[in-house]
């Protein structure tokens, strides 16, 4: 594996993944003791995705997790006690008991936007965060996650198209865990690699093995760096597997046994432990020290949560509006007068780089200025309109997209599930599945 993480930082990746897993195991026990008020959604087997992606971000960057991305919240600096108290509906939770699970955030310090249960809506919201960050010259990247299931929503399309059109510094992690509740991905989307959808938005994409935390980290880090450098949004598909059911009540009998075994054999934490041992990055003593630290922290935070009170009933009536309880002030990293007239003034005309006819595809490409100008005047296109030109050759299928794969060139293949083996055929990763690996 080719990566630049120091030993300390690799051990930190292990720490966050194991913290994520142990925290959730404790919550399962609490669930069985009826101490979790609502549902509990396990991310078992997906810890490398949550941790590896968020670990590629800077403190100033913004995230909006999905419900299973507890590891991303931990990496962002939120504490196990926040997760415990949220699930147990305590007054000490970040939402004071008004919402549960991972439905909380932190605008001022950690830069975390709370998810809602309706999937896809975070994508346009985080596109807006990215645009605002650029407007304020904060040099931030905005990241959110979407599942294979959520990628079918209209909000996914609208948000990704808007972010592409506005060239937003936005990273979308498509966390393909093979199942949308009880429906396998092959029955939701008729393409093998969901990253291929990037072609349709004119944005770049990558694919990584979601159960290999270093592959996830490396791929995401490159994506984040490119994004910060102004190359526009990027879609990163990580292939993983939801090992448990949709939530605690769901025994997931619908998952084929062989598929479960296949993925269990690729457990991200076991794999990473093996790697750390084989690479001599730790020994048994050092591992037990990290594990003991996790136990200690979780003991303390679980105790805190269990001893915390429920909210007072009258709280239900409070906080519908912001009545001056929050100060709203943007963090400006550029002089405001750049954004005020006369500096902000432009000629209100469209720049149209090419005229859309078949015969001239590409003809005016080099004259097109980069999208997402910073409010500065740019030259009007020098291209002259060409009229009444019949196409000289039949239209070609578009294969010039910036994404890295072309579905049409791949042989038609019915895959029973995820990256698992086809019937009677040993599993062998196909070349394009290795794109995210190093």
């Amino acid at each position: 594996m080719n990566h630049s993480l120091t030993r300390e930082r690799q051990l930190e990746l292990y720490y966050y993944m194991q913290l994520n897993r142990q925290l959730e195991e404790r919550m399962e026990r609490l669930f069985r003791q009826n101490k979790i008020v609502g549902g509990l959604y396990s991310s078992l087997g997906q810890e490398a995705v949550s941790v590896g992606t968020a670990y590629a971000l800077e403190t100033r960057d913004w995230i909006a997790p999905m419900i299973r991305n507890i590891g991303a919240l931990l990496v962002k600096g939120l504490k196990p006690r926040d997760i415990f108290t949220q699930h147990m509906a305590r007054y000490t939770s970040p939402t004071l008991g008004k919402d549960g699970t991972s439905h909380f955030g932190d605008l001022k310090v950690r830069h975390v936007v709370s998810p809602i249960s309706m999937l896809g809506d975070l994508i346009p919201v985080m596109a807006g965060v990215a645009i605002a960050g650029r407007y304020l010259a904060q040099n931030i990247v905005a990241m959110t996650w979407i599942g294979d299931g959520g990628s079918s929503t209209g909000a996914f399309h609208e948000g990704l198209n808007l972010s592409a059109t506005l060239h937003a510094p936005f990273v979308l992690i498509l966390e393909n865990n093979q199942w949308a509740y009880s429906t396998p991905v092959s029955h939701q989307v008729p393409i093998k690699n969901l990253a291929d959808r990037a072609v349709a938005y004119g944005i770049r994409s990558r694919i990584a093995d979601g159960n290999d935390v270093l592959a996830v980290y490396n791929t995401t880090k490159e994506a984040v760096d490119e994004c910060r450098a102004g190359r526009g949004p990027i879609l990163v598909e990580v292939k993983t597997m939801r090992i448990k059911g949709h939530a605690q009540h769901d025994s997931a009998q619908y998952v084929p046994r062989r598929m479960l075994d296949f993925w269990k054999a690729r457990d991200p934490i076991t794999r990473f432990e093996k790697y750390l041992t084989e690479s001599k990055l730790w020994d048994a003593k050092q591992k037990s020290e990290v594990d003991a630290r996790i136990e200690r922290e979780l003991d303390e935070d679980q105790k805190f949560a269990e001893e915390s009170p429920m909210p007072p009933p009258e709280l239900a009536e409070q906080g519908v509006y912001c009545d001056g309880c929050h100060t709203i002030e943007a963090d400006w990293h550029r002089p405001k007068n750049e954004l005020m007239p006369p500096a902000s003034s432009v000629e209100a005309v469209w720049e149209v780089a090419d005229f859309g006819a078949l015969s001239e595809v590409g003809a005016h490409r080099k004259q097109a200025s980069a999208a997402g100008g910073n409010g500065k005047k740019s030259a009007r296109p020098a291209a002259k309109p060409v009229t009444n030109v019949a196409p000289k050759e039949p239209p070609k299928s578009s294969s010039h997209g910036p994404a890295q794969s072309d579905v049409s060139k791949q042989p038609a293949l019915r895959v029973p599930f995820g990256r698992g083996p086809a019937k009677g055929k040993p599993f062998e990763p196909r070349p394009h599945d290795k794109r995210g690996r190093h």
Partner: protein
Amino acid sequence: MPETTMLEAIRQALYEEMERDPAVVMLGEDIGVYGGAFKVTEGLLARFGRDRVIDTPISETAIVGAACGMSYLGLRPVAEMQFIDFIACCFNQVTNFIAKSHYRWGAPVPMVLRGPSGGGVHGGPFHSANPEMYFVHTPGLKVVYPSTAYDAKGLLKSAIRDNNPVLFFEHKFLYRRIKEQIPEGDYTVPIGKAIVRREGRDLTIVSYAAMVHTSLEAAEQLAKQGIDAEVIDLRTLLPLDRETILASVRKTNKLLVVHEDTRTGGIAGEIAAIVCEDAFEDLDGPIARVTGLDTPVPYAPPLEERFLPNKEKVVVAASELAKY
């Protein structure tokens, strides 16, 4: 002072707020180069630039979602629905994401969602609606619906400066039909305060938006019949100014509610409930209402006329009520 249309007053509010505060940005469909379907935003792109006046793809969910995200970083976005009917396309963003944000996790959403609404211009079922009550039923939002140029400017400025998501309805029938002298420069009109447009003793007519003008015309005719009607303009539907309504009913003892929105689930029902709860013993007659029909807004002029309340319908209802 020059006479100003409601449309011009709205543009002035946008212009002045953008001059005042670089945190104010706009996004919507065709608002920049084209200046908006009704030309409300004409001239703003040229003055404030592409970072502050953002032409978006046709995607209402993305417009509203992005505005919400921008507001989380302390900006004050004003998002436009080309016609307010299209707010249905982003219902989830508005009701689940934005409205619940502050209550759930303490994240204020200081944004405005504005757009042309209402009938009387032969727009048909998808360009004439009054969808305000979907949102009056959604805690966390504020819903503003002005009837005059003065109020439109002052309320829009208040909406932009408010820390909460404000839905700002602009009745398109009024855009260019009403004109009045409004003071130059900065002033605001408070959100959540109704106003008595005409004082009277015999009965109270509560209304808002275009129907305020219909109600005032009806009141003039009623005066010729010896009925002295008080007319209240709600201006804000959420939060509702209960006190102004109750004070008037306690004085006149009779209440008629007039709105263009459809009848079932319209705000007349909520106002009737409030008055029954808090001023039942002051009532001398049944609470009456004149509203749009419980149908979509039809296209053909005779059908739309049938749909809409008008002066005659208000006069008939008020005359009946006055007999108690």
